[in-house]
């Protein structure tokens, strides 16, 4: 891996950590604060692509595991991997990978703005919602003994919020691509 | 120093940053001036091999920047425009040690080298501080320490007094004058280089004046108003 890719991944990990420290940002049109860290995972895929995005997320989890309070709310340490929601944390890695992989394939420089944003949105939903919840819900179902159906119903309340985050990530991803293109992955 | 450019030039993304040129730099203190985007930084980066010539070759003290890249980086220390981005680890002492990693030094030797370089720039009190909290002048000295700990005989500084207040500027100037290493300084701060041995003026990727500071600076003033 080139030094530049290593640095890009580390800087993005720093952005994801910082997003957990910053106060929630209000969206303009719905009065719901966005806690931005899980959106950072989608952004990592959308902006950096599969490989660098996945490494950025792995770095955040590594920092948490070795005892740094890098997750939102100042959580950190190995104890965060003992929660019933740990599946969502592990799912971050795969969410970033799938979002990045699909972004690299869906979005082309030759497309118009609408199509690019739509491509990023589809990638973010597939990775950051479908894949993420597949991991999160399966883990929750097993650890709690609730079973898949109940675990799914219990997690459903969070899906609308995550769809909104995917939309923001798609818009931001497209804006960053215009301002500082990193996709398709440069060597 | 003994830096030789042999018909060396570089272009990327279809744009020529430095037109092929031949010269040899042997003076102890050399200044590089020119407008923004004139090729100064690319030229300096070619000297320590960060930018490879797309034609010709560059040698430093006999080492080729392409073939002997590692040896060249042992010869040339580089202080970047923004020292903020130069310091990689969160605590200054850790960052300085990083440059010595892989040199098979014992823990004690490493400590001695680090403490020595900190003392040299009078920044021992900053060793265990968080890099993020250092001021502009402190950062510039910290960057110097982190590069000079590996004892390169040549140091390149890219606009070392940029964005410093008067006190920090004086501090950095004084530190530069006291350096035993050969220095090559890119600067918009003309008084800084007024007593240097040789000054190069870059314009649109070429050297358009080369000689004693006062002559070259006069030439630069003409370009600046044209």
């Amino acid at each position: 891996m080139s030094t530049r890719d290593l640095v890009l991944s580390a800087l993005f990990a720093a952005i994801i950590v910082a997003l957990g420290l910053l106060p929630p940002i209000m969206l303009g049109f719905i009065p719901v604060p966005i806690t931005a860290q899980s959106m950072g995972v989608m952004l990592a895929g959308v902006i950096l692509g599969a490989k660098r995005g996945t490494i950025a997320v792995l770095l955040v989890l590594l920092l948490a595991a070795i005892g740094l309070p890098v997750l939102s709310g100042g959580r950190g340490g190995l104890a965060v991997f003992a929660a019933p929601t740990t599946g969502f944390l592990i799912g971050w890695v795969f969410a970033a990978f799938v979002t990045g992989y699909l972004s690299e394939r869906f979005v082309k420089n030759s497309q118009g703005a609408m199509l690019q944003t739509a491509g990023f949105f589809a990638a973010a939903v597939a990775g950051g919602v479908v894949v993420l919840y597949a991991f999160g819900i399966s883990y929750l179902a097993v650890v709690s003994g609730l079973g898949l159906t109940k675990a799914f119903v219990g997690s459903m309340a969070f899906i609308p919020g995550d769809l909104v985050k995917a939309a923001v990530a798609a818009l931001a991803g497209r804006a960053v691509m215009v301002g500082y293109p990193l996709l398709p992955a440069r060597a | 120093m003994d830096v030789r450019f042999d018909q060396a030039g570089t272009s990327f993304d279809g744009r020529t940053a430095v037109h092929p040129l031949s010269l040899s730099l042997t003076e102890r203190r050399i200044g590089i001036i020119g407008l923004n985007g004139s090729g100064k930084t690319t030229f300096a980066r070619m000297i320590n091999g960060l930018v490879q010539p797309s034609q010709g070759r560059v040698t430093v003290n006999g080492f080729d920047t392409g073939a002997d890249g590692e040896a060249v980086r042992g010869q040339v220390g580089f202080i970047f425009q923004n020292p903020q981005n130069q310091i990689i680890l969160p605590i200054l002492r850790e960052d300085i040690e990083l440059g010595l990693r892989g040199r098979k030094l014992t823990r004690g030797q490493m400590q001695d080298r680090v403490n020595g370089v900190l003392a040299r720039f009078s920044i021992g009190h900053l060793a265990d501080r968080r890099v993020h909290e250092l001021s502009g002048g402190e950062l510039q000295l910290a960057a110097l320490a982190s590069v000079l700990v590996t004892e390169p005989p040549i140091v390149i500084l890219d606009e070392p007094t940029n964005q410093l207040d008067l006190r920090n500027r004086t501090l950095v100037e004084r530190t530069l004058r006291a350096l035993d290493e050969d220095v090559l300084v890119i600067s918009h701060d003309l008084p800084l280089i007024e007593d240097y041995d040789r000054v190069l003026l870059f314009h649109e990727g070429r050297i358009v004046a080369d000689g004693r500071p006062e002559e070259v600076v006069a030439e630069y003033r003409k370009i600046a108003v044209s």
Partner: protein
Amino acid sequence: MRSLYVEGDSRLHRLSPRIKLILLIVVSLALFLTRSPIMLGGAAFAGALLYGSLGMGWREGWLRLRPILLTIAVVALATLMLNTVEEGVVVLLRLTTLMLVAAAVTATTPVGSFIGEISSAARPFERIGLVRADDIGLAVGLVIRFVPEVVSRYEILRQAHRARGLKLRPMTVIVPLTIQTLKSADEIAAAIDARGIRGHKPPSRS
């Protein structure tokens, strides 16, 4: 960023990080092999004693675990109501014990020892070209170094918004924050290569 390591000289502090991590894995497997509330209750009690013996004080110890304990409690309560009381109790005790033991390992192992352990675990993969072990420590250091920079960039953006009477919106914060931060990547990478820290030929482009 302060780490969650707590200075001390307990038996757990002196144990090598590798042994602690192996023990943690063994404990977590054992916890999932039993369904007896009595055994799990004993384990939770032992875990609490262990965690309490590290000398970090009650308040600090509680604050660290509160958010995790809350999710465990919510899920245990759901299990208790939707399935059986016994299952709810088992989930609560099992995860609480795991959390306590994991937190004890974190509190007794400095960040540097973890990085050393992970780097040596990565050496075998280095030989097959999958990862460079020294890059792990370098990357972790870079993240810790640049989190405060990102936060100060956010502060500057926030003030810029206020100065122009604008409200903070995700798009007007995240986009410039990301671009500004990633733009410094080129120079940071050049600095790493110029100092020969990764000890290999740098790329030819600027």
